[in-house]
C-alpha cells in the first residue's frame, strides 16, 4: 500500500471563511474534484492555531477528526510532540486574525516568523519536507526573499500564492505558451496589501507564459484617485484592454438605475469608483503591465492582453465563486489544495515559487509607491527570472 503522507498545518486563525478553514477543511472533509467527492490521499495529523477566540472551529474539527491533534507550538506541531520532524508536508496559512498594521497600511501577518519556526525544525532534524505558503510570502520584501533563499538552500519544495491563477476561467483559456505579449491589464477589486496581490497573480500567471519567459520587473508606479483618472485619460495603460477586462466581469455594477448591464461612460465610472488604484510596471524585457482595483464597480478579477499580430485582445475572467453572496463554498480553494496535494505526493511544485516571489515584491513596491506620493520606484531587486510551467495548472476538469 502506498505511503500516506502526514501533513501539519500552521495557521493564524480558524474560523468560518478564514483561509485556514477553506484549506484545512478540504484536507479533512474532502472536496468536489474532477466529478466526485475527492478525499486527499494523505492525513492532516497536526495543527497549530496562533489565535483561538470567538468563532474558532479548530476544536470542533479536532474533535470530529481525532487523527488531527492540536499542539501549542509550531515545533511540536511538526514533531508531533517528539524530538524530530515527523510530518511529510507543511501548510502555512497566515491569513486572517488580529495582527498589527504598519504605517504603510500593511497587515503584518506572521508568515515569515512561522516559516522561520518551521525551518528551525527542518534544520534541527537534518531533513526538510515540502511547504505550501498561502498567498504572498510576506508583507516585507527582504523577508520574502530570505524565505525563498532558505528554501533553495535547504532544497525543499516550496509553493505559495493566490488561488486566482488556478481557479476556473470564463472563458477557459490560457495564454498561449511563448506568445508575444505587447501589454497586459488586470482589473480586480479589494484592498491594498490584500487583494492587489490576487490581481497581480492574475496577471503574472498569464504573462509569465510569454516568449522568453519571465525576466523580472524594472520599475513600478502606483496611481490613486485623481492621478488615476488622469493616467487613464492619458492612456498610461491601454483603454482597450481595460474595457476588454470589464467585458469579462460577471459583476459590473449598472451605471444607470433601471438597467442591469450597461457599459459605463468615463463620467459614470468616476461616480461609481471613489478610490481607483493602479500599479503600472515594466518588465525587464519591456512588457508593460497594469493592475487596477475598481472598488464599487466590480467584484471579480479580469485579465486582458494584446498579443502581437492579433487584432482582438485575449481576455478572460479568473472566476471566484465567492461566499456568501455567490456561493456557500469558496471552491476556488479546491484547485489550490489539489495543486498542493500534488506537491506533497511528488515532492515537486506544480507551479513556480518565483511567480509569487515576484508578486510579493510587486505588492510591496505598490504599497511603497502609494505611501511615497505615487512616485515611480525602480525595482532592481525584482530581477526574478523563471520559465513558466508548460502545462496549464488552472481548473478545467
Amino acid at each position, binding site marked *: 500500500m502506498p505511503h500516506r503522507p502526514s501533513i501539519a498545518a500552521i495557521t493564524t486563525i480558524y474560523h468560518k471563511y478564514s483561509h485556514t478553514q477553506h484549506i484545512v477543511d478540504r484536507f479533512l472533509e474532502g472536496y*468536489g474534484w474532477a466529478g466526485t467527492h475527492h478525499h486527499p490521499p494523505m492525513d492532516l495529523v497536526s495543527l497549530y492555531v496562533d489565535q483561538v477566540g470567538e468563532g474558532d472551529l479548530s476544536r470542533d474539527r479536532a474533535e470530529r477528526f481525532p487523527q488531527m491533534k492540536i499542539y501549542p507550538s509550531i515545533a511540536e506541531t511538526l514533531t508531533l510532540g517528539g524530538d524530530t520532524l515527523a510530518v511529510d508536508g507543511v501548510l502555512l496559512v497566515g491569513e486572517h486574525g488580529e495582527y498589527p498594521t504598519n504605517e504603510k497600511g500593511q497587515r503584518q501577518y506572521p508568515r515569515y516568523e512561522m516559516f522561520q519556526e518551521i525551518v528551525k525544525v527542518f534544520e534541527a532534524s537534518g531533513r526538510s519536507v515540502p511547504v505550501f505558503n498561502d498567498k504572498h510570502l510576506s508583507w516585507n520584501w527582504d523577508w520574502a526573499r530570505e524565505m525563498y533563499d532558505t528554501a533553495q538552500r535547504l532544497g525543499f519544495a516550496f509553493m505559495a500564492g493566490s488561488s486566482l491563477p488556478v481557479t476556473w476561467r470564463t472563458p477557459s*483559456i490560457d495564454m498561449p505558451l511563448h506568445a508575444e505579449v505587447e501589454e497586459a491589464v488586470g482589473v480586480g477589486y479589494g484592498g491594498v496589501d490584500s487583494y492587489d496581490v490576487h490581481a497581480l497573480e492574475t496577471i503574472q500567471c498569464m504573462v509569465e507564459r510569454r516568449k522568453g519567459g519571465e525576466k523580472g520587473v524594472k520599475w513600478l508606479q502606483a496611481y490613486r484617485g485623481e492621478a488615476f483618472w488622469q493616467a487613464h485619460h492619458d492612456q498610461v495603460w491601454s483603454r482597450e484592454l481595460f474595457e476588454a477586462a470589464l467585458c469579462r466581469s460577471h459583476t459590473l455594477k449598472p451605471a444607470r438605475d*433601471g438597467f442591469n448591464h450597461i457599459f459605463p461612460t468615463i463620467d459614470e465610472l468616476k461616480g461609481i469608483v471613489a478610490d481607483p488604484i493602479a500599479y503600472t510596471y515594466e518588465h525587464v524585457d519591456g512588457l508593460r503591465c497594469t493592475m487596477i482595483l475598481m472598488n464599487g464597480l466590480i467584484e471579480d478579477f479580469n485579465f486582458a492582453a494584446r498579443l502581437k499580430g492579433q487584432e482582438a485582445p485575449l481576455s478572460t475572467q479568473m472566476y471566484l*465563486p465567492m461566499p456568501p453572496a455567490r456561493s456557500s463554498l469558496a471552491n476556488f480553494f479546491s484547485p489550490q489544495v489539489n495543486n498542493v496535494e500534488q506537491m506533497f505526493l511528488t515532492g515537486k511544485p506544480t507551479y513556480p515559487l518565483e511567480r509569487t516571489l515576484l508578486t510579493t515584491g510587486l505588492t510591496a513596491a505598490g504599497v511603497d509607491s502609494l505611501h511615497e506620493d505615487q512616485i515611480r520606484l525602480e525595482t532592481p531587486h525584482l530581477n526574478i527570472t523563471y520559465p513558466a510551467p508548460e502545462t496549464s495548472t488552472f481548473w478545467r476538469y
Partner: protein
Amino acid sequence: MPDQPPKRLAVICTIYRYLSHAQHFTDRFLVGYPCGGHWHRPNMKVVSLFADQSPEGDQSRARAQEFGFEVYPSIAETLRCGGDALSVDGILIIAEHGEYPNNEKGQKQYPRYEMFKQCVEVFEQDGRSVPIYNDKNLSYSFEKGLEMVADAKRLDFPVLAGSSLPVTWRLPDLELPLGCEIEAALMVGVGGSDAMDYHALEAMQCMIERRKGGETGVKAVEMIEGDAVWEAGKQGRYAPDLLVSALSRSDSPQGYTKDDGRTQDLVGTGELPRLVKKPAAYFIEHRDGLKTTLLMLNGAVSDYCFAARLNDHPNLQSTQFFLSPTPPVTYSACLVAKIEEMFKTGRSPIPVERTLTVCGILDHCLTSRQQSGVLIETPDHRVQYQAPESSQHCRD
C-alpha cells in the same frame, strides 16, 4: 463592405420592468452587451413594442422615449408598426413574469402560444414571415408547443426558444462528444415548478441530445415527490455516483456549509434527506432506451449541475451550468448572441425541437404529478432531431 441598414425588431412582452426577462433581453438590443471580450452593439433597432401588462415599475414607455421606438396597443400593430403590412425583420416574444393564472397542474399560463399565434396570423395575412425568438418554454402545453413548431415549419420561418442555461458558461467547460453513447444522465436543479424545473430539464437536454442517434422522442415519464424520491434512489432508479458527481460541481451546499463553511459530501454523509424536505424526481424514458432523471433538491444546493455516464469512458462527466450574479445576469448575453445570430442569418443556431422536447417532458411530468406520480406513456412525444455539430454555449 457597405454598412447594412439595421435589422428592425419588434418586442412582444408580458411586462417590462427591472429584472424582468423583457428588460434583460430587450435592453441588450438597446445598449449592447459583452461578447467575446468586447462590448458589442448589435446592428439592430427595436422599432416597436407591445406590453400586455403595465404594472408599477413599467419601463416600456421610458425605454420607448429614450431609444425612439413606439409602443402599440396590439400585437398586429406592433408587427406592422402602425401600418398595414409586416414591417419588422425579427420578433422577440418575451412572456415571462407578469400576473397570469395557474392551471390545475400548477402551470403558470403565460400567453406565449397566444402571442405567437397572433404573429403567425400577421405572417399569413401579409404573406411574409420573419424569425421569432420565443423566450423560455414554447408553452406550458405540449399540444400548443407542437402547433407553434408546426406553424413555423409550414410558414418556413426560424424559431429560437429556450433557456439561457444551455448557452451559459460551464464549470468546467464540458461538452459531451457528438455521437457519444450515454448510459445514464442525471440533473440536479432547484427552484419552483414550472419555472425552474423547465430550466433544469433544458440544461440536461442540451447535453444528452448529442448522443448517438440524436434525440428520438420520449416514451414515458413519471414525476414523484417527497420520501418516495429517496426510496427510488435506494431502488436504483438513479445512480448514487451520478448524484455525487453532479453535487461535486455545486458551489452552494446548504446545512453545515452555511453554518461553518465546511465542504460536504451530501450523499456520503447522509445529509441530503435532512436538508431537502420536499424533493422531486422527474424520470424520463427516451424512445432509444436512455433513462434520465432530474432531481429538484431545494434546500440542498442552489445551483444547476449535471452528470452522465458514458459507455467505454472511465470517468463520469459532470459540470455546473453557471448562473452568474443578478445584476448583471451575464448569462442572458450568451443567449442574446444566439438570438442576434438568428436575426442576422435567418437560421436558428439552436434547434427549436430541443425546447419542444422539454416542453413535452415537463407538461407530461406535471400530469404525472397531478395523478400522484403515475407513469405516463407519451405516444404523442415523437420529437426527433440532431444536435448542432458545433457547441453553442459560451466558451470564448
